[in-house]
């Protein structure tokens, strides 16, 4: 049982995260994630196959348009593998961004009736969308086998990429969910901006294009956009031909941590209003 003494007072502006309390509610997080995963494909014919269909079809279309028609370079990697390695982390990020951004709006019927650590709400989709992500890795394995590509030791860095993905998704989740509950424009804005964000990330083109055209400094600057670090290091993890882009990864990690911390602070400072503005 967590701390039994509760003090409620007006105008408390200090940033405080009650880890003991969050720990008490870990089972709630588990069941929220469980609910998300079980409910999403209920009463659908294809069920979890959707987690494969989405990235697979994006990859096929990108291969046709960008790989064949536009002939965009893929650093010597077969274009389908190249773009799938971009599409998978991208799909996770965009799905989380949409789900997390509207998570508070969707949970308003719960948090206006019961108290529990509000921070669990945008975290839930960050975890539950990992299931789709994991399922989509199976096509990746098929692609790698088909194209005869064997991952090497870089595979050990996979947890690092996962960590960066989770931090980035949670950070944006905190920001957008807290903003969207008060300003619904954010919700519309997210669905409008996600396709644009995809073209900003090296999903259909390699970041070496930036490096070759604008030089190394701009390339590192590009890393501030955390998706650059995520996608480039995700590719490196599975393709032995690319060395792990440490500099880019660290820049992306720093910027993701910045988004995460500021987002968490903003979220916990505004959470007391959620029930009033919802």
């Amino acid at each position: 049982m967590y701390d039994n003494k509760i003090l409620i007072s007006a105008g408390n502006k200090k940033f405080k995260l009650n880890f003991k309390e969050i720990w008490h509610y870990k089972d709630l997080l588990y069941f929220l994630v469980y609910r998300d995963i079980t409910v999403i494909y209920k009463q659908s014919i294809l069920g979890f196959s959707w987690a494969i269909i989405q990235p697979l079809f994006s990859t096929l279309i990108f291969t046709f348009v960008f790989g064949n028609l536009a002939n965009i370079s893929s650093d010597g990697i077969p274009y389908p593998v190249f773009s799938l390695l971009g599409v998978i982390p991208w799909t996770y990020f965009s799905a989380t961004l949409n789900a997390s951004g509207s998570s508070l709006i969707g949970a308003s019927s719960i948090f206006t009736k019961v108290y529990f650590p509000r921070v669990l709400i945008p975290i839930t989709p960050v975890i539950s969308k990992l299931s789709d992500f994991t399922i989509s890795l199976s096509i990746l394995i098929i692609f790698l086998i088909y194209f005869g590509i064997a991952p090497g030791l870089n595979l050990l860095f996979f947890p690092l990429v996962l960590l960066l993905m989770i931090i980035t998704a949670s950070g944006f989740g905190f920001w957008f969910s807290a903003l969207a509950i008060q300003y619904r424009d954010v919700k519309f804005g997210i669905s409008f901006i996600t396709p644009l964000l995809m073209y900003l990330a090296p999903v259909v083109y390699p970041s070496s294009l930036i490096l070759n055209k604008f030089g190394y400094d701009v390339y590192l600057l590009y890393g501030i956009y955390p998706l650059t670090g995520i996608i480039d290091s995700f590719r490196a993890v599975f393709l032995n031909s690319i060395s792990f882009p440490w500099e880019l990864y660290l820049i992306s990690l720093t910027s993701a941590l910045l988004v995460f911390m500021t987002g968490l602070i903003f979220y916990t400072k505004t959470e007391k209003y959620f029930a009033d503005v919802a």
Partner: protein
Amino acid sequence: MKIIKVENLSKAYRIGLKEKRSDTLGGAITSFIKKPINNFKRLRNLSNLNEKSKDADVFWALKDINFEVEQGDILGIIGKNGAGKSTLLKILSRITEPTTGQIEINGRVASLLEVGTGFNPELTGRENTYLNGTILGMRKKEIDSKFDAIVDFSGVEKFIDTPVKRYSSGMRVRLAFAVAAFLEPEILIIDEVLAVGDAEFQKKCLGKMQDISQGEGRTVLFVSHNMTAVRSLCKSGIYLENGYVKENGNLEHVINKYFNVLTDTNFILNKNIELENEYIFIKNISYYSGNKQINNGKFEIDKPNTIKIEFDNKSIRGNFNINLLFNSPDGYNIFTVCSPVKNIDIGYHQYNCIIPENFLNDVVYYISVMFVNNANPILNFDNLLTIEGLEPPRVGSWLGKFPGLIKPKFQWNYNL
């Protein structure tokens, strides 16, 4: 021990105001352009409130609330709709923050502002039990150990692995209440959740509520409009009116305050009517419960009541009697009481109609008064009087309202 201490608590909300509309094309265009800016200000201000907020759209749902709750107390919070009861519960359960003031709570709080919070129609009864239980602050282990008892109490064993969307609404409510009934916090906050399910299940709920609140020195805060339930469950009370605490402490005082405000009427509804004509002059009509004169017409249904009519007979000759028509507020005549037909002398008369104890129910009655001479009404007042029955504290676990417009206590014989 003081388990809850509330000091200078206030809560302000912003309510929407009607927007100005321009009637010129230019004005319409300007206001269209300005609209996003105004929208932004309006939305930003939703969370921008303090004790000095005096804008026209600021509404104070609670104002300077102070009270303390002892450990083991069962506190009834009563008041009309919009008095601030739910806001108070929401602040106490940490759903929303107060605008001013502070609260000290010494214990683990669980709040039931509705049953079945977070129920997902796609999930099965079992899954929802766990989801709802953890939302209410239970741990998985805790639910594991109580699971059988919860299912047993809910009576939906057969459907526990069926998605809740296939449940009837009654089954859903029963399962939801069952989960809540097995919470074991030190402080329990309950808002009107009793008004669910059929009569039988309500009875079960109230019985369970009594068990919960009487067990192990638990503190309960209970908001309800059902005075019978409040009377039987609670030990003390708070009466809220327009955001202020109007009465605090002794439950009977608090409930009386509530009733006086609820129907702040007089026994005689219309005092301006002409009570005199060529035949008769009505001097006074009064109402007694036991020996006590009651001006607001509220009586306890287990005591005899008297309607006393005093009049001067000016010119009535022949057969005379008085009819009292007891009507329900929706205009339906429940029964009529006629005085014996008599010849009366000119001059002062006093008629007492005695309503026996244990005959009327705890509802509102309107009474029409009719004076009859030789089968002709000579003076007739529609719904002139009103009385309201109050029920004394009840023994037993059923606390719902007894249906019916009257509640006679007939004689029973046993095992003849």
